[in-house]
């Protein structure tokens, strides 16, 4: 008897994003390249997700992102095991789970890709948190390699003139550092080209995200979490630009064809904070079951949020200021302004905040933001207590009850 062909649900098939396979291919190639960099005579640098990677690309250094790796650990549900290993090494359970998982991988070569390639040097930009400073110090001791710190003063009210001067000077120091590590001079023409590609990539990424403003949305924040990897990892390359063009076009086509990611989109929600990597599918289905679509989020838009501050013809100086101004390096009142814009742009019916045990700078202040949003915009809000990688901090029944109750309040 001949094999029965597997019958796929055509409705579901129609909603699948075709570009996903391309994205997976790009990421696989990227990680193979990173892992074999040494044989190819290339240098590898570890860099924080908010760090100015453009300079590395221009110097032909392969950038590796421990945070992206942390997300992979979370998505492949290996977080608990690795976090526990780090705890055995003496790292408190209360520390960021990206850091814990990554530190454990460094020592055990564990995780989904058998550990990250060893760095030749480290670049840490503290525009996202103080955690990365400590985490990179750990890596610098472990691998015994040089560490460059780009110190971006936190913005409580505004970025002072002296802070601007400080970050610009450090950008020049960064270039000197790279020249020393790579034993060659920076090619400023190439740097200019990389900057142009970076800005173009950011713009395209924003266009992708903007398509979700359409009703019904052709993609959700869960899709954005997945497709984010390139704007972090390959920003400043033609690959990222080409990919996001493809993705944007696919999204536009979906709008034309009337394809919605959530079949009966009725409620539109905004997500705050990092994803719950090991539960994206569950959460996505949970919200869909209420005909709710997470149309936007504060996290994936953080990268493109600063692109208007960048002048690609003067990337060194304007980039430094832009990098200092990212979403999480600013005070709650400035964050509120961004939140309001997103709420308006995506025309949402509610805000879902992930209170993420791991990420203190993102999570502390959420209660205040919540109150301000409810008061000023009269928007319903929900707070979920969880963790992005460490599944021990996720209580399914509790979260399910909260989501169900919240959705009831939205229903007329």
């Amino acid at each position, binding site marked *: 008897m001949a094999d029965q062909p597997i019958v796929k649900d055509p409705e579901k098939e129609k909603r699948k994003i075709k570009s996903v396979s391309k994205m997976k291919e790009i990421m696989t190639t990227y990680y193979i390249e990173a892992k074999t960099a040494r044989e190819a005579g290339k240098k590898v640098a570890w860099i924080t997700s908010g760090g100015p990677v453009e300079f590395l690309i221009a110097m032909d250094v392969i950038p590796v992102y421990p945070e992206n790796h942390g997300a992979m650990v979370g998505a492949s549900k290996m977080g608990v095991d690795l976090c526990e290993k780090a705890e055995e090494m003496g790292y408190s359970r209360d520390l960021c789970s990206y850091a814990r998982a990554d530190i454990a991988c460094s020592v055990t070569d564990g995780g989904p890709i058998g550990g990250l390639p060893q760095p030749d040097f480290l670049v840490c930009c503290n525009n996202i948190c*103080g955690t990365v400073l*400590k985490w990179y110090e750990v890596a610098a001791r472990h691998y015994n390699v040089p560490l460059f710190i780009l110190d971006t*003063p936190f913005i409580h009210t505004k970025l002072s003139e002296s802070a601007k001067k400080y970050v610009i000077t450090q950008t020049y120091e960064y270039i000197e550092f790279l020249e020393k590590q790579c034993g060659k001079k920076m090619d400023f023409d190439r740097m200019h080209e990389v900057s142009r590609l970076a800005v173009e990539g950011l713009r395209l990424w924003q266009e992708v995200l903007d398509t979700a403003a359409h009703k019904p949305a052709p993609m959700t924040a869960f899709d954005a979490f997945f497709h984010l990897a390139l704007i972090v990892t390959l920003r400043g390359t033609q690959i990222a630009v080409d990919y996001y063009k493809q993705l944007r076009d696919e999204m536009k086509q979906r709008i034309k064809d009337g394809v919605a990611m959530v079949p009966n989109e009725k409620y539109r929600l905004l997500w705050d904070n990092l994803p719950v990597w090991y539960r994206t599918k569950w959460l996505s289905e949970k919200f869909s079951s209420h005909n709710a679509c997470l149309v936007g989020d504060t996290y994936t838009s953080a990268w493109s949020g600063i692109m208007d501050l960048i002048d690609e013809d003067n990337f060194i100086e304007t980039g430094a200021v832009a990098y200092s101004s990212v979403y999480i390096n600013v005070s709650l009142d400035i964050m509120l302004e961004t939140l309001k814009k997103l709420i308006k742009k995506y025309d949402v019916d509610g805000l879902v905040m992930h209170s993420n045990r791991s990420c203190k700078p993102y999570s502390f202040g959420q209660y205040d933001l919540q109150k301000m949003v409810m008061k000023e915009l009269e928007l319903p809000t929900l707070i979920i207590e969880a963790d992005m990688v460490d599944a021990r901090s996720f209580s399914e029944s509790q979260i399910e009850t909260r989501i169900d109750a919240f959705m009831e309040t939205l229903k007329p």
Partner: protein
Amino acid sequence: MEALEKIKAIAQDPYSYALNLKKTTDKPVVGNFCSYTPEELVFAAGGVPFRLFGTKDDISLADAHLQAYCCSLVRGGLEDALKGNLSFLDGTVFPHTCDSIQRLSDIWRLNTGFAFHIDVVLPVKLDTQSARIYMIDVLNSFKSDLESALKNRITEEKLRQAIKLYNRLRQTLGEIYEMRSKDPDSISATDLYHVIKASMITDRDEFLELLTLLRDELKKKIKDRTLNTHKRIILSGGICNHPDIYTALEESGAEVIWDDLCTGTRYFEGDIEESGDPIEAIADRYMTRVVCPAKHLTVTARGESLVRLVKDRNASGVIFMFLKFCDPHAFDYPYLKKFLDDAGIPNILLEVEEQLPSDAQLKTRFETFVDMID
């Protein structure tokens, strides 16, 4: 020991002291959470820098603003502010420290309603020339922010006087620490804890007088050869607001004879150059003293200095004491521990939430630890 009694009274009830200060003088009281608060400038502007240590009350109001996974210092400080326990404060100064303090500053500014609020966004790395220049800029703008907040001009003369006074305060604190290190019977660890705590709260002119008196009294008391045979321990961590651990340790046969705490040596170590530009001199103290874990000097600076400290102080063990949920300290712990282990120095970790572990628990842990030390 009249001076000591007065000091203890202040340290045991700081808020009453501050309320009384407000009644009897017109000096502004300026709250802060960090040893990187440029106190010399506050003093030169006529203010009394007032260190906040968290709360003794249960947390209820702060729960509406901060998740439970936030350290007790931050939650407790906010609790007291929201409850009105800090009504004596004219304003607060927030040097940039860790992610938690960074957000506390926002929440504080938006909710507590003190007359002024100043953020001092210091550099995080302290090992480069550009960081030094930025630090000087930040101190200069802090100076003008303070001048307008306290409506008082900080003349160069006043600033130089402030630096002199602070140098004397720090040196005298150092002398008393030295005395205890030499002869632990000269002043008990609990008493010294009260001294250092009061030094961060009391009107500094008044405090220098008390402190000098105390030092002179202790000088008469100290023996050339100590009769104290307890094991010599160093306490390392952030903030210590639990004098009980000193007694528990003593009962187990050990003494804290030195520390590496924000509310300890990190507060008073390092003089400020009295000649030259005063603002630059203040910056240079921060650039050279032992760093707090939320700042970067080199990747091994703290480990090296801790091992050196143990040797220099002829100590035989280290107790790490951190607040639960404190990231900077928790990140450094495994490596500091390794440095100590490699040098053969016994050490234990005590993680503290709002409350210390029970007396019995504490004693068992300390006794086992003291037994580890030969």
